[in-house]
């Protein structure tokens, strides 16, 4: 399995009134093709900032200082690799929602309240996959039952053939401003809606034909989140980034979404970067897990390894502080608080709260090294690693 995404030495700072917040400090990890990578950590550890850095949508006053975000779009141009941080803004605009889709915590913020569900999902098809849609229409035109007259057929074929080549050309802008003819893309829209219906159906939403005519306020939170996922998947992205996509949902609804993510994985629809604070969600859905603390990655390993044989003291403490189903004794909590990243602790950022801290931890930040197999850990204490 090759990588789909590789992040190398990413550094992000936020320049605020109180000082420079060192939000990401040399973060490196990679996401395998067709797998689910979970990024866990507490609030303020930089997991969302990482996702935003990948999409290059970090808000003011944040800035990406250095590092690389390398996407391997094998399916697009052979074996090329693209460093997203070096690309133009226009390139990124094309990439967002197309090759990489992102789902946020709040489905309400992601859906337009005055557009029907079908239109919103179809819009994504129209925006990113005009070519495929046109080809569908062409093939339908040539073998459809309701053949229009020959002249009309010729016209339509030319138009959609042209649109398949370059949908944004001057010709179509001109066409769009001529009355009657400006409706040339109606056929395109209806194909897009049809695809939207089938995609929504695939995500396990009952009666997709009915749902596409509804508006966001008709749907519940879980349903809305599924629509958002559908919009994210519409463009067949290489990578789907889910930023706390289930955190706001109720237990039974969250269960539905988690099942959906599992199905997506089984069908190999895309690679997923799942960002969450909930270790339970990670255990259920991910193949590989990266644990973050205060802007650093402490540990990366396969999901079983993380839960059965965690190496980093933070991961161990975090696992101990979560109530288990068969918890009988007291929970062990991590003493102290998450540090303020304006003045992060020197050396290893976890050392003030660490049970296994050594003198060296105070001066030197540990590097992320391979402990064994594919288990990476950043800790000085050799009895740990």
């Amino acid at each position, binding site marked *: 399995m090759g990588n789909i995404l590789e992040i190398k030495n990413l550094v992000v700072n936020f320049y605020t009134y109180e000082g420079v917040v060192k939000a990401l400090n040399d973060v490196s990890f990679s996401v395998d093709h067709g797998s689910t990578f979970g990024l866990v950590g507490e609030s303020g550890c930089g997991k969302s900032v990482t996702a935003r850095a990948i999409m290059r949508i970090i808000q003011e006053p944040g800035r990406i200082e250095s590092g690389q975000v390398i996407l391997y779009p094998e399916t697009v141009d052979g074996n090329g690799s693209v460093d997203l941080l070096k690309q133009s803004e226009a390139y990124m605009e094309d990439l967002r929602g197309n090759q990489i889709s992102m789902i946020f915590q709040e489905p309400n913020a992601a859906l337009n309240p005055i557009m029907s569900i079908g239109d919103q999902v179809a819009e994504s098809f129209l925006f990113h996959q005009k070519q495929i849609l046109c080809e569908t229409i062409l093939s339908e035109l040539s073998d459809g039952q309701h053949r229009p007259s020959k002249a009309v057929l010729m016209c339509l074929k030319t138009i959609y053939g042209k649109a398949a080549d370059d949908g944004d050309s001057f010709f179509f802008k001109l066409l769009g401003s001529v009355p009657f003819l400006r409706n040339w893309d109606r056929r395109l829209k209806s194909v897009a809606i049809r695809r939207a219906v089938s995609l929504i159906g695939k995500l396990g939403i009952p009666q997709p034909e009915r749902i596409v005519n509804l508006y966001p306020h008709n749907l519940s939170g879980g*349903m809305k989140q599924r629509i958002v996922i559908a919009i994210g998947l519409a463009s067949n992205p290489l990578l789907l980034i889910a930023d706390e996509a289930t955190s706001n949902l109720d237990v039974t609804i969250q269960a539905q979404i988690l099942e959906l993510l599992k199905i997506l994985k089984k069908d190999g629809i895309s690679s997923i970067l799942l960002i969450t604070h*909930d*270790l339970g969600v990670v255990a259920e859905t991910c193949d590989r897990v990266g644990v973050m603390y205060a802007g650093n990655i402490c540990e990366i390993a396969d999901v079983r390894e993380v839960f059965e044989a965690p190496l980093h003291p933070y991961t161990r403490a975090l696992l101990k502080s979560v109530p*288990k189903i068969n918890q009988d004794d007291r929970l062990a909590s991590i003493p102290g608080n998450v540090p303020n990243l304006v003045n992060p602790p020197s050396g290893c950022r976890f050392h003030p709260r660490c049970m296994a801290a050594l003198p060296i931890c105070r001066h030197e930040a540990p590097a992320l090294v391979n402990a064994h197999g594919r288990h990476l850990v950043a800790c000085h204490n050799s009895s740990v690693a």
Partner: protein
Amino acid sequence: MYSQNKILELRNLKKYYPVYGGVLRRVKNHVKALDGIDLDIYRGECVGVVGESGCGKTTASKAIVRLHTPTAGRILFHRNGRDDGESITDISRLKRGALKRKGIREKLQMVFQDPSTSLNPRMLVKHIITEPLREYTDLSSREMENRVVELLNMVGLSKTHLMRYPHEFSGGQRQRIAVARAIASHPEFLVLDEPTSALDVSVQAQILNLLLSLRDKFNLTYLFVTHHLLVVKYISTRIVVMYLGKIVEMSGTKDLFATPFHPYTFALLSGIPIPGSEQRMKRIVLSGDVPNPLNPPRGCRFHTRCPFAFKQCGDEEPGLEEIAPGHFSACHLKSRSRQKVRDKFGNGM
């Protein structure tokens, strides 16, 4: 484990929110946020209330601390565990002033969900915590300060935090301040409304342990409202499961997790994402969403999503019945539900 003295009785507690419509803004319908709750709470126990959003758990907790007046029903407060008629007060209709005069206000306190909004951003920590002290004690300012420091120490903060604003603290520390404020007036009963859901995992454990130790120290009674089942399992002695404004199941914590009866509880328990690779039961994914509380389904409110619903469920509403000692469930299947779950989902629970 805890004494058999009741501290609070809820009797047929209801809260309807009117929905206005039309030009004349007449009452068209009611959102039945809380639709007839009966619950006895004993001194020293911690009752966990779980359910999804909109099930009425927060409405119930706010009714108990009288942040709103229930539409119907009674809330009986037992003073100091004596059971004679005099010491039982129905607080469901008392005005806020009367509640304070009778000395009940200070005994019922609440910790809110999000400490970043439950602390006044323009007040110093010192003044936040002195606020209840000023209401219920006549301490001099020096004694007051000593008492505040004492309270801060109790919740794991120190004197250096006295003269700071809430925004200077982390989420966990803020929740500690909120807890200190709640226990300042020597309460007997604390309502905890999702006190850890806005906090980080590592800090959540600190707050839960703090709450447990305070309960032992001051013999407090908790009503712990949350949607997080593992948290409620950790802290509660007894659990109440709510669905659409009704109690569907109620039993001791161990019992509920080991032998649930209500199908909804099964679904909830199986829906918990479990951290780790422990043996887990097969997930029962409920179809659909929680129905609109404006028009709750007829009969059993859960029957629209219940995998085992049969005809009676749509017609007749099941009452809360004691199926095993101390274990109540509101389901027509009664104890047969366990067998049904095993038949359909085939997992030994």
